């Protein structure tokens, strides 16, 4: 660790860094624009200039750009000397020559890095008298607003969009002070991580359009730490509320998971919270409203006799809600809401994660992998943020090459130049084309069975103790050998798989590959479907088929469903039968879906934004989310409805969390996911409102002039108030990054143990799964079935927008959801004498599904990849072979 001298003081800094990073890590204020902790240095903006001295005798020094200067032993610099300060002020002044002084009407105002840096450098007087250049703005789709006049040309947007996220349709055009950052023509941004432009842009060029429609200043938002509910990765988020509406989601830094970036589903999917589909009050069949008290009484009465009641939980409901249901009905009568195969899939995942000898990696660890095999998962659509991490992992070969010729990893353009197309190996085995294909070394397309066979064969190639695979085709043998060689040569090989194929042998094959690998740095990451799938699996419960049997046999009569649209998890016929056979159906949920129309009693639940709870992500990390606002008057947390019905006598969230921790063996750690409600700093709670929160006494003035008492929150250490502890709370309770002079999200730098590393005091969450390393080989590999002529194997095709139901309830996301599609190989389309855009009918037993044909050269012949989770897909029996024909009428 080299020592450097900054303004006369000696500091020990991390070698291998650049000077800007080192200064920021020391907590010093050095302004910057083009540098980004996740994207490195390019030296464009020249804002982070400091004076460097050759030695003690050197009084004059010379100006150097901090982000482009490596730290080294004995380096002497000054941030404070006049030349450097003057130069930094000059740079801001230049950036401001074209920047409109529109802060009062700019949505970035109050969370603007440019504002912060301008104030920091002391630029106050405008000397430039010329005309400002002006630009035309573009329509970029439902997510992002474009206001090019504000641009200071830091190039972060294009570096992020193209280089980091792999996007192609946002670029830089023109030259000199007319450089333009946008698309070649108006249109929806194609990249699924476009929303990060909002935070990457240091000023108001790219802003959140959904937020703009219900705009409020950052300081006027009530915020709380939250967890994304739109996939299983558990990205940390900060929702913001004003006037009882959820206004925005921004990234909440977590050093091991999402770090600086979210996917567009996670950022823009929150609209369902404000949706008209929300269930606002208890209802009887036919949407007949009843009072909450009457509903409580009714619920109690229908729960008698207790042995006739079964409960169906949900992978998108909190641990607390699922646990309360399980307590209410008893473990014997608790059902997960998954089918038998769904239960089996999740139990396979759990068994593998509990017993594998490979690392179960965080996203940050995934980015360190030097060879990746993706087996049967399409993370771009099922766990998007993971795909962004894979994009970073393939750069590792380039970083290594750069290091060999002396280029530090942070010197971004130089690393990319020397690396060119050199990437760490990435192999993708999938049923259709994926968005990562462009950076893959090779791709394999097949049915889930074939994908599993490939995995088993790779394992066998790596390790002769792995079970051999019979009847392997020559081409599959070759692929398996190539993949095995690449993984074998890696220090940190990574296998990514999951439930995406709906086939447990795919997961078992991935487990075999992980077991077969010899490298100590090997890792196995499994993607699961929903935000609390792992938590639900840890509680374990029976399947929907068993529920249906219990209802059919008369063993059960009443079914209590918590936060679950069963049609998303099981075929229509099974769910229809189940509901038909139930004498009484109760649904507790926050949003209306088809089950609500079939329930006898519907109880309004709080959404993630209105309650606290715990989700367990795909790596088995329990994470707490907190209510950002109060639920509607007649809503309450699902677990509270269940408590009131007699599930337990938990007074507050802490009581039920303690009950979970002591009651369920695998869930002991959940209590430590975040400090409990009794946590105080200097005797005070943590405020959800900023110290500049405005309008508190006026915001209800149209209703009553008296200021109501601030609501009490007995369930968490957070307060619905401006008052409270002004010092930094533990990371799990930190909703919004804000530091003196740092109003934008870039202020996170003040709360990290090292730049881009862990948060001070450790990243939040508790990992629940300890793996024993005792996992045996899985031997039951499938024999791929011969294709029957005239039938197609129906496999799921996931879509980032559409396959996840909650986000689809957000208007901005809904604009991006396509109708039900069936992807077929062009040859199959020809055989069916049909073309893209035509309506096709998939004929399942007893019913048919109509979908729009699309051509995908990636889909193997004899396979039909059908949109998963979209309206209209309820009747599909996945992984069956069905005939397809042209539909009589257009869809």
């Amino acid at each position, binding site marked *: 660790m080299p020592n450097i001298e900054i303004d006369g003081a000696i500091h020990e800094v991390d070698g291998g860094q650049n000077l800007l990073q080192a200064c920021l890590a020391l907590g010093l204020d050095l302004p910057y624009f083009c540098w980004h902790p996740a994207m490195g240095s390019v030296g*464009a903006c020249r804002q982070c200039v400091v004076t460097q001295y050759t030695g003690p005798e050197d009084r004059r020094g010379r100006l150097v750009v901090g982000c482009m200067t490596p730290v080294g032993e004995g380096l002497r610099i000054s941030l404070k000397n006049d030349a450097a300060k003057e*130069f930094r002020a000059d740079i801001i002044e230049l950036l401001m020559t074209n920047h409109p002084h529109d802060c009062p009407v700019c949505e970035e105002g109050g969370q603007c890095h440019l504002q912060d840096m301008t104030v920091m450098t002391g630029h106050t007087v405008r000397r430039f008298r010329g005309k400002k250049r002006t630009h035309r703005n573009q329509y970029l789709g439902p997510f992002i607003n474009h206001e090019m006049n504000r641009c200071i040309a830091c190039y972060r947007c294009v570096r992020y969009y193209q280089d980091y996220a792999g996007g192609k349709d946002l670029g830089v055009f023109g030259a*000199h002070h*007319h450089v333009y950052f946008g698309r070649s023509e108006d249109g929806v941004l194609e990249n699924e991580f476009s929303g990060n432009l909002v935070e990457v842009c240091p000023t108001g060029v790219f802003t959140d359009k959904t937020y703009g429609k219900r705009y409020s200043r950052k300081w006027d938002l009530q915020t709380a730490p939250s967890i994304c509910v739109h996939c299983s990765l558990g990205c940390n988020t900060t929702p913001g509320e004003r006037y009882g509406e959820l206004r925005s989601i921004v990234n909440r830094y977590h050093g091991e998971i999402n770090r600086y970036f979210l996917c567009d589903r996670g950022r823009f999917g929150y609209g369902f919270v404000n949706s008209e589909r929300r269930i606002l009050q208890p209802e009887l069949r036919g949407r007949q409203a009843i009072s909450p008290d009457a509903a409580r009484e009714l619920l109690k009465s229908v729960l008698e006799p207790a042995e006739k009641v079964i409960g169906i939980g949900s992978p998108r409901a909190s641990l607390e809600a699922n646990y309360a249901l399980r307590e209410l009905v008893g473990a014997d009568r608790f059902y997960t809401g998954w089918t038998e195969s769904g239960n089996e899939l999740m139990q396979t995942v759990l068994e593998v994660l509990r017993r594998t000898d490979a690392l179960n990696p965080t996203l940050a660890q995934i980015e360190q992998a030097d060879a990746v095999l993706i087996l049967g998962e399409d993370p771009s659509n099922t766990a998007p943020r993971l795909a962004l991490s894979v994009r970073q992992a393939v750069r590792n070969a380039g970083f290594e090459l750069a290091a060999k010729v002396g280029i530090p990893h942070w010197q971004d353009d130089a690393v990319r130049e020397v690396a060119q197309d050199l990437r760490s190996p990435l192999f993708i085995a999938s049923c259709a084309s994926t968005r990562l294909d462009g950076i893959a070394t090779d791709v394999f397309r097949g049915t889930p069975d074939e994908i599993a066979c490939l995995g088993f064969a790779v394992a066998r190639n790596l390790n002769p103790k792995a079970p051999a695979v019979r009847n392997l085709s020559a081409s599959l043998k070759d692929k398996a050998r190539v993949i095995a060689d690449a993984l074998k040569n890696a220090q940190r090989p990574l296998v990514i798989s999951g439930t995406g194929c709906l086939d447990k042998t795919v997961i078992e094959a991935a487990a075999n590959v992980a077991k077969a690998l010899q490298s100590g740095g090997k890792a196995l990451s499994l993607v699961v479907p929903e935000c609390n799938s792992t938590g639900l699996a840890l509680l374990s419960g029976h399947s929907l088929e068993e529920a249906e049997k219990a209802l059919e046999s008369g063993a059960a009569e009443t079914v209590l469903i918590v936060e679950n649209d069963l049609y998303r998890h099981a075929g229509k016929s099974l769910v229809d039968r189940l509901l038909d056979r139930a004498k009484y159906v109760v649904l507790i949920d926050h949003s209306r879906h088809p089950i609500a129309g079939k329930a006898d009693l519907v109880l309004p639940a709080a959404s993630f934004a209105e309650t606290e709870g715990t989700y367990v992500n795909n790596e088995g990390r329990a994470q707490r989310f907190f209510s950002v606002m109060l639920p509607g008057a007649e809503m309450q947390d699902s677990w509270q409805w269940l408590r009131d019905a007699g599930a337990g006598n938990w007074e507050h969230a802490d009581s039920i969390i303690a009950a979970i921790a002591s009651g369920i063996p695998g869930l002991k750690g959940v209590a430590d996911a975040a400090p409990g409600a009794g946590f105080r700093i200097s005797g005070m709670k943590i405020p959800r409102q900023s110290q500049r929160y405005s309008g508190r006494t006026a915001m209800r003035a149209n209703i009553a002039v008296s200021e109501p008492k601030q609501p009490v929150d007995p369930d968490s250490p957070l307060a619905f108030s401006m008052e409270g502890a002004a010092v930094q709370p533990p990371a799990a309770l930190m909703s919004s990054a804000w530091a003196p002079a740092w109003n934008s999200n870039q202020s996170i730098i003040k709360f990290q143990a090292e730049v881009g590393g862990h948060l001070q005091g450790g990243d939040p969450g508790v990992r629940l799964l300890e793996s024993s390393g005792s996992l045996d080989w899985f031997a039951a590999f499938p024999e791929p079935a011969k294709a029957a002529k005239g039938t197609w194997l129906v496999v799921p095709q996931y879509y980032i927008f559409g396959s996840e139901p909650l986000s689809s309830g957000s208007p901005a996301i809904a604009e991006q959801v396509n109708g039900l599609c069936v992807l077929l190989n062009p040859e199959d389309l020809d055989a069916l004498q049909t073309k893209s855009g035509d309506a096709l009918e998939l004929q399942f037993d007893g019913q048919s599904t109509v979908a729009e044909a699309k051509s995908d050269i990636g889909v193997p012949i004899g396979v039909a990849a059908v949109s998963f989770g979209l309206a209209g897909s309820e009747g599909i029996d996945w992984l069956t072979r069905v005939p397809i024909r042209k539909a009589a009428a257009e869809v």
Partner: protein
Amino acid sequence: MQTPLTKNIKPGRDFATLADYRATGGYEGLRKAVTSMESLQVQQVVKDSELRGRGGAGFPTGLKWSFVPMGENAPATKYFVVNADEMEPGTFKDRVLMEEDPHQLVEGIIIGSYAIRATSAYIFLRGEYHLSAERLAAAISEAYDQGYLGKNILDSDYSLDLYLHTSAGRYICGEETALLNSLEGKRANPRAKPPFPQISGLWGKPTIVNNVETVCNLPHILYYGLDWYHGLGRGKDKGTKLFGASGRVKRPGIWELPMGTPIREILEEHAGGMQDGYRLRGFLPGGVSTDFMLPEHLDVPMDFEAIAAHGSRMGTGTMIILDDRTCPVEFVLNVERFFSRESCGWCTPCRDGLPWVVAILEDLIQGKGRPGDLDLLHHQTRMMGPGNTFCALAPGAMEPLQSALKYFRDDFEKYLRRPVLAEAG
């Protein structure tokens, strides 16, 4: 007086054909190099020749080459690139060499490529140089036919392919790393150094970028030897150089003269002195990105260090003359408009600073100047000085401005003393 670079350029002849070129020893330097010398020996000869780059910076060519990894562990792919993107205003020396004697450049490229064991070579040619493109393309084709290019050149173990690339046209493409980006099909933004192109250049591979005139020296150095070459210069620097003059002189043009030829000799003997009725007020010694010099500097020799000692740079060695009937402020405004337009837009000082300089100068000339404007201009010249910007474009742009402010201050102040035009509001 010897003129090796232009000896084949003859009045009444269109250009030197392959036969013409060979008639005066053409391709003999190459033959000597590839058939009797190791690559490192060629590098040593060029180093010992003390040849300095003719593109403007004057960096020793042999030293530049010496940073290229050589030997068995060196990367298998290396590139030799010729910077023929001659866009410096007032500079037209490379054009003459390429149009009139294209084989001289081709031979030089092969020698330079051999010296660093390049696998491919590129000529990055200014887009507007149509005639050069035509003649170079023909010369390259002839060189392949004669076995000077392609596999096993002159039956040696050395092979080379040479490609001609015509630029889409930006001044910044003359900056060697911006040139490489452009050649790769990217935006012509300069790159940060280090890494230098010798380590990570074209497509991330070791690369040498040399100016046309520099490369044209190579065949002669190899063929005639060091003693001969060292005997050419009159001052400290070695060899000959194409010097030029434009502006209100009697005979604008270029001449190949020994390095170290006094400026007065170039201006008065070769360019014929000032046109009748015009007096010399100053001159830019080597393109618009060099500082003004004054009549009192006429006896300074055209030598890199001698010119530098008088606060300017020899640059491309093609002078632009400022006469007494041209306003130096308008002259500078014209220059700054050029630089402002040609900024790539990458770094802040250049992108946003140059338009501000233009705006101040425009205000000044329109009578809208304010007290303090000259100090502001002076401040800008320091702010955009060497080291503060990403590449040398803005510092180059500041050279004529800072020297004009120094030498022609009265002309600037004159505008400030004019009655201020009525301003609305």
